[in-house]
Every structure is written in structure tokens, then in C-alpha cells.
């Protein structure tokens, strides 16, 4: 099939950037979205033009690197799908496709579709860890954890830190990301010790990084390629209330 791409091109962080149009001809429906871009880039390189710069790594939907807003939806908007797992069969011959980078003050554009997502790392550094004693490996069942708790923590841990929640949020808030980390650790025995300081420090860091405030638009949940629920934001709010004595 033949497609028309409108891709955000920006030579560097200081450049203003603009959408440019490229044809994508003879695209196979079996290609992934990134493979389609690889082919377009081959063509651009052959004709002596700069290839479209985009982030990618595992191409298995687990690394969280591919950060593109496709036709107005982070990762293309297909349920629980990252860009690398989005296939061209979801598009039709003749489609016009708009490809833009994550847009948020906290995610400065490096080049074209690549943004700097270090701000999420800063939030992690503020409290996304547990302090534990080093030494021998603990016994397997030394910390009994019930199945529902383990499942809950695993659901939160599904977050791959891609930043789609920020990209989808009208306020560019990273609350879903932060809440997944806070909730995952808050329910486990290892994380309970620092729970109060964690929620405070991580949400303060979220603000310092220039993310917006959460106003319950729920776009994050709809944007998340891992289906992280806003129930974790509710959990984060409960954890925060504990720090102010509620």
C-alpha cells in the first residue's frame, strides 16, 4: 500500500521544527511501523537526504524507547501496543499519517522524533528504590507476600517508563508513571519502610522536572501501552494522605 507521512523534523533542541511530507510506497501490511520508517529512511539516504531520527531499541514492546505520537495518539492509540508492535495492517492504502514526538516541557526534543526522557529517571532517583541490607541472598519465603498483593505489584511494575502517559496528558503530567512506581513499592514489605518519604519525594520531583499537575483527565490510562490503570494514581493519593496524617 501507498501512504503519505507527515513527520516532525527538527534538527536540534534549539531548532523550531516543522512537519514535512514524505511518500511511503509499496508498504507491506506485515511490516511494523518502525520497519516502515526504516524503509522510508533507506529511500531518504539513497536520495542524499537526512533520515528521520527516531528512538527504538528492543522492538518487542518492552523497552519503552519508541516514543511517537501517531495521528494524535501516543503509540498510535491501539490498545496495549507500542509503536514497534503496531503493524501496518492497521492502516489503509492512501492513508495520511501524522508522526510527532512526545510534547512536554519536561521532554525536550533532541532531534526529530527523539526526546530526552531523563526527567523520568530523576523521578526514579527521588524515591523509586528500596534501601536494603546487602549480604547473602534472602531465603525464598522469608517475606511471605499474598497472591493478590503480588499481582497488584506486578500490574504496577508493567510500566515500561515510555512516557506515553505524559504525551497523552493534556497537562503533560507524569502522574501515572509516578503512581505505578509508588504503588508497586508501597504494597511490598521491602517498600513499606520508605513509603512516606517516597511518595513525597517522587511527586515533588515530578513538579521540579516541569511536568504538569494531574487533573483526572484519564488520557494517561488510555495512552498507556501496558494498560496501567489510574487506580494506581488513587493509590498514590492515599499514600500521600498518610504523609499529612489522614
Amino acid at each position, binding site marked *: 500500500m501507498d501512504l503519505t507521512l*507527515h513527520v516532525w523534523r527538527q534538527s536540534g533542541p534549539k531548532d523550531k521544527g516543522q512537519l514535512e511530507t514524505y511518500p511511503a510506497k509499496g508498504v507491506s501490511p506485515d511490516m511494523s511501523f518502525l520497519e516502515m520508517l526504516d524503509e522510508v529512511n533507506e529511500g531518504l539516504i539513497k536520495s542524499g537526504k537526512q533520515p528521520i531520527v527516531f528512538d527504538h531499541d528492543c522492538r518487542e514492546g518492552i523497552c519503552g524507547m519508541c516514543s511517537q505520537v501517531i495521528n*494524535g495518539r501516543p503509540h498510535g492509540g491501539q490498545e496495549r501496543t507500542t509503536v514497534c508492535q503496531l503493524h501496518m495492517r492497521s492502516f489503509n492504502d492512501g492513508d495520511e499519517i501524522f508522526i510527532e514526538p512526545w510534547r512536554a516541557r519536561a521532554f525536550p526534543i533532541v532531534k526529530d522524533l527523539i526526546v530526552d526522557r531523563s526527567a523520568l529517571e530523576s523521578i526514579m532517583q527521588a524515591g523509586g528504590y528500596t534501601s536494603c541490607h546487602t549480604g547473602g541472598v534472602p531465603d525464598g519465603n522469608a517475606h511471605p507476600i499474598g497472591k493478590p498483593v503480588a499481582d497488584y505489584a506486578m500490574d504496577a511494575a508493567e510500566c515500561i517508563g515510555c512516557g506515553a502517559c505524559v504525551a497523552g496528558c493534556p497537562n503533560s503530567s507524569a502522574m501515572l508513571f509516578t503512581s505505578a512506581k509508588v504503588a508497586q513499592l508501597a504494597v511490598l514489605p521491602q517498600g513499606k519502610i520508605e513509603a512516606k518519604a517516597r511518595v513525597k519525594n517522587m511527586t515533588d520531583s515530578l513538579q521540579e522536572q516541569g511536568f504538569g499537575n494531574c487533573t483526572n483527565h484519564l488520557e494517561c490510562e488510555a495512552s498507556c501501552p501496558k494498560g496501567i490503570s489510574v487506580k494506581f494514581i488513587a493509590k498514590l493519593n492515599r499514600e500521600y494522605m498518610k504523609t499529612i496524617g489522614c
Partner: protein
Amino acid sequence: MHLTQSTVGRKILMAVTGLLLVGFITMHLLGNLSVFAGPDGINAYAEHLKSLGPLVWVFRLIMLALFAVHVTFGIKLSMENRAATPVNYSIKKRMKTTFSSESMLYTGLIILAFLIYHLLHFTVQITNPEISAAKLPLDAAMRPDVFSMVVLSFQKVFIALVYIVGMIALFLHLTHGLSSFVQTFGWNNGPSHDKVTLGGKLVAVVFLLAYVAIPVLILARFVNI
């Protein structure tokens, strides 16, 4: 004070003040509906409120404080959220958010403007002094005639329209607010979320219908002096 600076703290402040203001509009609505009971309803109610004396002022000051916190933080948070997205997408599709959630700042400002008009109209009584309770003759039981003031006001199309627009803004604001506070207080466990949202919308509809009934029914001459 961490609460007034933290992103979550301020969210909780918005929810708590918002909820208390919903408490006020519930009480206010029940009082207002006494207009349908005629002069003996609303005039007696108004006189009773006045008889509370200094308590009325304590109540007004509390309301003013709640409003000040809600409006100040509402504007501040909205401005921060705009600053967090300096460049807009060429195309952005709405997936789950609603018109009411996206227009909270605007509906809030409309409600604020409405509130100022409403106070000037019925409390200070300077927008239409010729039909104010202060100028109208006392009723049969020698009480200020609030009933006539309300009826004569809403028989004017312009005033009725201002109130209807104000109540539509309130409805949109409540549609988001009444479901959102549950999430903010951390009472959403996942499956309950959609039901709570629906419940919030239904309550907002009840407020809209009940409040709008007053100017609409008076304008349509279902209620006369």
C-alpha cells in the same frame, strides 16, 4: 506547608474545597426551591436566615475562604499545566477525557462571573433596584418580599438567561468535579471508576434540572405573583 505546594496536596485542596462548595449549593438549592411554595415559603426562609445575625457573617466568611482557595489554586494549577505543554500537537485525538474535564478553567471562570452578578442582584440588590426586596412593599406577614423580587426578576428574559447560562456552566463543572474527587481521595479501586463517574454525572444532572427549573418555570409563567 507542604500541602499548599505539593502537586498532590493542592489536588486534595481543590477536591476538599470543591466538595464543601457542593455542600453549600445543595443547601442553597433546597432553600431556593421554597420559591415554589409561594411567599410563605421563601419569604419565611429569608427572614429566618436574617434572624441568625452574626452567624450569617461567619458562614459568609467561611464560604469566601473556600471560594478563594478553590479559585486561586484552580487558576494557578491551570497555568502551570499550560506551561508544562509549551508546544501543541498538530493533531491530538481525545481518547478518554471529556469536554467538561477540558473546560474546567473556563466553566469555573463563568461560575465566578455568575456568582458576582448573582450577589449584586439578590444580595446587594443594585443591578435591578426597582424590583429588589429592599424597595418592594413588605408582604402580607410584614416580611421583605423576596418572592416578588425573584419572580419579577426571572420574568425578565435577560436575567433568566444569565441564570440558565450560569447553571449550565455549573453543570459542566460538576460533571467533572463530582466524579473526580472520588479519584483524588483515593477511593477508586479500578472497577468502581466508571460507575462513580456515571454517578457523578447523574448528580450533576439533578443539580442542573433543579436549579434551572426556577428561572425556567418563572419565565414560562408557571409561577406568578
